[in-house]
């Protein structure tokens, strides 16, 4: 039993779950929704086991130099998928709206398939700069935050689709068809807000632990390098989103757009900075 076997099971589970959630939107069958949830949950269990096994394997391979599996692009992407499922399951437990899964599971599936197909899963020992417990705290908080933003983004897309249709057909009472299974725009707006409310303090904590680590390793907690700056940009966007809730005229459609822009900035912060810009962060050029 190796971690890569379980990562394959994970990828397959998320794929099956995604397909079933989409099938649910088309069929509205509660049985289909149940299967989608179970396969998604099974994928999550496999994902958890895979990460645990990889941790164990790092000790087998590197002896005392083994480490938590959160240190390169591959490991971060599979952890991102794990975080998305975790946040999604929390939200699903609270709101019980299976159609949301059709817009969230794709993020987890795309992450997994990308990691499996095109990223190196070699377990390398850590360069000195990464040998710090701060790394673990930093990665966990950042990625849980990112995952919450992914859920918010999925829900915002649903919101924009639904509100567009609702406004076009304002005269025809209850919207039928596929959009009928979507939660009401009010609930979508609420999930968007709740997810960002979870993500924002986590992102804050992620930036703080990153700053603490930088200070411990180099003596500067903030140096305006592109990665740091982009995390701050993301923070600004979501802070704007949260304050927009208090003013009229900024809820609904504009809030949904802010949430989508925020997630785009998040993805750029996570991947774009390394792949497009240059900087200090370690998994550049991967």
């Amino acid at each position, binding site marked *: 039993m190796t971690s890569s076997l379980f990562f394959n099971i994970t990828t397959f589970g998320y794929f099956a779950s995604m397909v079933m959630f989409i099938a649910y939107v088309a069929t509205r069958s509660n049985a289909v929704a149940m299967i989608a949830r179970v396969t998604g949950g099974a994928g999550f269990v496999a994902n958890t086991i895979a990460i645990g096994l990889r941790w164990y394997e790092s000790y087998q391979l590197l002896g005392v*130099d083994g480490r938590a599996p959160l240190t390169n692009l591959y490991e971060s992407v599979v952890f991102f998928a794990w975080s998305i499922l975790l946040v999604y399951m929390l939200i699903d437990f609270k709101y019980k709206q299976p159609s949301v899964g059709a817009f969230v599971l794709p993020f987890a599936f795309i992450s997994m398939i990308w990691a499996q197909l095109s990223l190196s899963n070699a377990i*390398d*020992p850590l*360069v*000195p*700069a990464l*040998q*710090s417990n701060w790394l673990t705290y930093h990665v966990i908080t950042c990625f849980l935050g990112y995952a919450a933003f992914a859920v918010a983004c999925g829900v915002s897309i649903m919101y924009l689709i639904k509100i567009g249709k609702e406004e076009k057909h304002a005269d025809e009472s209850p919207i039928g068809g596929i959009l009928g299974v979507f939660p009401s725009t009010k609930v979508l707006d609420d999930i968007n807000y709740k997810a960002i*409310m979870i993500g*924002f*303090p986590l992102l*804050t*904590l992620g930036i*703080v632990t990153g*700053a*603490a680590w930088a*200070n*411990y*390793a*180099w*003596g*500067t*907690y*903030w140096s*305006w390098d*592109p990665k740091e*700056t*982009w995390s*701050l*940009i993301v923070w*600004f*966007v979501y*802070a*704007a989103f949260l*304050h*927009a809730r*208090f*003013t009229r005229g*900024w809820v609904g459609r504009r809030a949904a757009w802010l949430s989508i822009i925020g997630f785009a*900035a998040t993805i750029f912060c996570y991947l774009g*900075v390394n792949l497009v*810009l240059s900087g200090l962060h370690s998994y550049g050029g991967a």
Partner: protein
Amino acid sequence: MAHNQRNIIDRTWDFFCSLKLTIITLLLLAITSIIGTVLQQNASPEEYIREYGQSNYELFVKLQFTDMYHSWWFVGILALFSANLICCSIKNFPRAWKFVTSPALIAGEGTLKNSVNRAEFSSKEEPQQLAQRLAGTLEKAFTKPTLTEDDGKLHLFAQKGIYSRFGAYITHLSILVIMLGAIMGTVWGYKAYVNIAEGTSTAQVWPRGSQTPMDLGFEVRCDDFTVTYYDGTQRPKDYTSDLVVIDNGQEVIKKTIEVNDPLTYKGITFYQSSYGPAGNASFKVQVKVRESGEVLNLRVVQGQNTPLPGGYAFAVTDYAPNYDRFGPAAQLRVNTPNGQQGAPFIVLQQFPQFDEKRAGIFSFTLAGYDEPPMYTGLSVAKDPGVWVVWVGCFMMVFGSCGAFFFSHRRIWICLDEQNGKTRVRVAASAHRNQPAFSMAFDEMKKDLAQTIENKA
């Protein structure tokens, strides 16, 4: 005229308090920050000109794009942002503080009639006694209430989570605290660097961007510097320096520092940052003059010409700790008396006879060598504001959790006489997360109804 002036002041004040300004400055900061991530910051003029051309470079300088996070306009947006935070807090804090100093012990008719969460009961029980029993129920189901008598009516009031009213203020204050810490670090701290060769010490460091060193007030000595690699690879595992702090002639601290484990003395912290060779390797070379059989034992430094009998000279030009798996090797060159350079050749420490086979006036043997001494490159930082920054971060995390995940929940119960019966009216509110509170309230309503029925 006076009226007009008032108007302008009011409007300016409202502008600085407004949430719209908050959203706009936040988005403005987000957008402008992108510039500095695309355009390299603090590079040399030549680099900018090579990349973007002369006229663009001049434009960048005019707009301060080459160091934009310290430009007047970026700092200006930050100042506007702080002014907004301060003004809105001054405006709204008194209202929040009122919840603590004068809690609404008595619910108004409006609250009782129009709250989303309300209930009404009636009972034959006498008000005073019922109020006591309801107070007991509330204490068990929620928290201990306060009883007030007013205008012949009895009022119970209970509240929880009042501190969450202050979450936003603590968060806002935390941003100012962090900025204060950053300013303290800039004004009273410095960033510097210093290279210390193994076995030497220094009492001075070089501040960044400055040509003159500054005194530390004590001495730092580096006893040893080591790089270790992961087995069988070129991947560095650790860089370590054995540092000793000497203050007033006394060794006060000894510590082996590495990346992620610095040394701090008197508020000044030394971080392992880089390393390199300090000087050259040295070699023990045995030279045999072929003709006479004379043997010379010499100690030479890499790159230096060493005289030999008859006006000749030689130098070690290169070495390898393990040359082609033959062990330590040195590359040598012999110069003729008229200064002509001979072809380079190799001698091996483990094969002393090897050079005998080479035709020449001298034959060489490598008897041993010492790696060049290393220097350790240290970042040196003094930042008396850093603890203020951490306090601010702590406040921000706790303040925002308080603001988002807790809410101020209040319950009022009003008992009065109506048509010979006791009327019990209940109202409740939460300033955040109302749906969850409504569910909790429905549960409490059942408890209250049961309490009333049990005696009625």
